[in-house]
């Protein structure tokens, strides 16, 4: 794709980030399959060991291979983050674009709903949502998606507003173009690059949120590993394995960092004029 090649050429940091994302995407799809050992195989006698040739990243509290668990845990965290970002995109972008065309009162109300969503303390609300409505990852994903939607709303709305007030839209409407045609041809072209950038950084924020929630134990279905869950259980054995938390922490941080780098570069490349990242909404 044209965009990707342009991104590739924009600097070595972006290249590194793209490679990292490629590796992560592979894990998300085929993680459990390429894990070197069975992530569930317990071996109490060799619990909490340091890295060795048999276990490249050591073993956890039940003697399971950490590297394999990292691979196997990738899909849960990554796909949830992807789902949450997608939910946010769908819930936020279309209403955001449409809000530029509705009468004043409706518009004001829609803006206030968005403000209300942004006024909710992110992680707190996600925790409460998940804990009170059944302790599962789907609920958590839904909560994150809803809370991420306002960012998409604003971006779509801002881009649409810019387009709405431009003269060639007036000309097109005068010439008989329907609202749908305007939306799908002109608005989309304006909005799309901004949405892409927002989606990439929202993905990073969603991954952080999923990691935080699984860290607190929400949405964890043992014995299946998750990155946040591994981090949390490693905390309990810091004395025996001080470098334990490093593996899942790095996995999370490196992935999110790569996403942010790509988002920034994409903003430059696509000429999107979206403001700085979705980070405002995601506070852990």
């Amino acid at each position, binding site marked *: 794709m044209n965009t990707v090649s342009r991104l590739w050429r924009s600097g070595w940091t972006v290249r590194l980030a793209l490679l990292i994302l490629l590796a992560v995407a592979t894990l998300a799809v085929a993680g459990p399959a390429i894990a070197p050992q069975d992530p569930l195989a317990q071996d109490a006698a060799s619990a909490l060991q340091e890295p060795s040739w048999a276990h490249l990243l050591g073993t956890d509290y039940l003697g399971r291979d950490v590297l394999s668990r990292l691979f196997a845990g990738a899909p849960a965290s990554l796909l949830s983050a992807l789902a949450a970002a997608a939910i946010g995109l769908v819930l936020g972008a279309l209403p955001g674009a449409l809000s530029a065309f509705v009468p004043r009162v409706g518009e004001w109300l829609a803006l206030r709903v968005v403000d209300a969503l942004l006024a909710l303390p992110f992680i707190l609300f996600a925790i*409460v949502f998940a804990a009170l409505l059944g302790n599962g990852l789907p609920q958590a994903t839904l909560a994150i998606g809803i809370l991420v939607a306002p960012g998409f709303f604003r971006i779509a709305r801002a881009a649409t507003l810019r387009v709405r007030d431009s003269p060639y839209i007036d000309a097109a409407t005068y010439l008989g173009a329907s609202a749908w045609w305007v939306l799908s041809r002109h608005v989309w072209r304006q909005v799309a690059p901004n949405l892409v950038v927002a989606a990439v950084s929202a993905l990073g924020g969603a991954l952080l949120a999923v990691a935080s929630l699984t860290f*607190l134990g929400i949405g964890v279905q043992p014995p299946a590993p998750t990155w946040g869950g591994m981090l949390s259980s490693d905390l309990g054995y810091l004395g025996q394995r001080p470098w334990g938390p490093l593996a899942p922490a790095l996995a999370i941080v490196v992935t999110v960092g790569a996403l942010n780098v790509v988002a920034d570069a994409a903003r430059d490349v696509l000429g999107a004029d979206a*403001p700085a990242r979705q980070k405002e909404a995601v506070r852990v």
Partner: protein
Amino acid sequence: MTIVTAEAPPAPAIGAEPRVRSAVPVLRTVLATLATAVAVFLLATFATFALGAASGSNPAAVALGEVATQADIDRLNHQFGLDRPFLVRYLDWIAGAVTGQLGTSWFTGIPVADSIAQAFPVSLSIAAGATIIALVGGFAGGVLAAVTRGGVVDRLITLLSTVAATVPAFVAAIGLILLFAYAIPLFPVAGYTPPDKSVGAWLLCLVLPSAALSLDAGADIARQLRTSLVGTLGENFIVGARVHGLGPARIVFRHALPIASGPALSTLGVHAPRLVGGAVITEVIFGMPGLGQLANRSALQGDVPVVQGVLLVTIAVIVAVGAVLNLVISRAGGTERSAA
């Protein structure tokens, strides 16, 4: 060339005519901001209340624990007013909240307002500490980076802020614990001592959580300040000042910084209120009995009144600070942001 981000208010041009001070537009702005804030508050608290109501948790099972029959469940539900229609309960709750009555915990029977009053100073201390560290660190970093623009120091600071912005608070918290629990036992790694017991112990116990929480805000402030300071330093009036022979320190601190601080401070304004209720995981990791830990524990216990109360207070703080910020920014001539 000026680099202005979408959030930055335009720098006031030198020699522009003073705006006419009339009461009516100011009043209109204040009323509009107030109306917005109230609407947002009501919507957000409605969502919170609906969440609690949808949870299906009931006080009898939570409170009685040992011997609760169906009769007990019905009795306690009636006692807590849970058999009334939803809207009635919501309005009752909001009306009570305004006067400081937030109900009682289903689990301990302690009034929610009391629990919040005890947890709030803890969260406030951590948030204030994080804000101060972010401000000091962010400003120092931003100024240094802008002043040495393009050099090694600039690149280093930019790299550090990127890392700081990416590392989530709880990962930083774990790192700090590893460092200070096992390597250098300098600060306590858990627990909170109130200032009226010992100011020194209070400050000590705040260091690590505030540091962990400040990374994100500090990085954003540093980057924001660097960008706007670089832009401001390229303005004509700065060149003029330099030509006049003013020393570089004076130029930076007395002429450029006051103008360039605007967007950085508004960034802080966005981050700061969220720190009050949002530091859940940091509080859990460091064992700080603040609002985040209170809400987390209550949510896991199904103690709905406490959860709703904490969320309400946090929302109120965020909305109030946002409204104040809006007013300040609009008075300073910036673009109006929404209430959050």
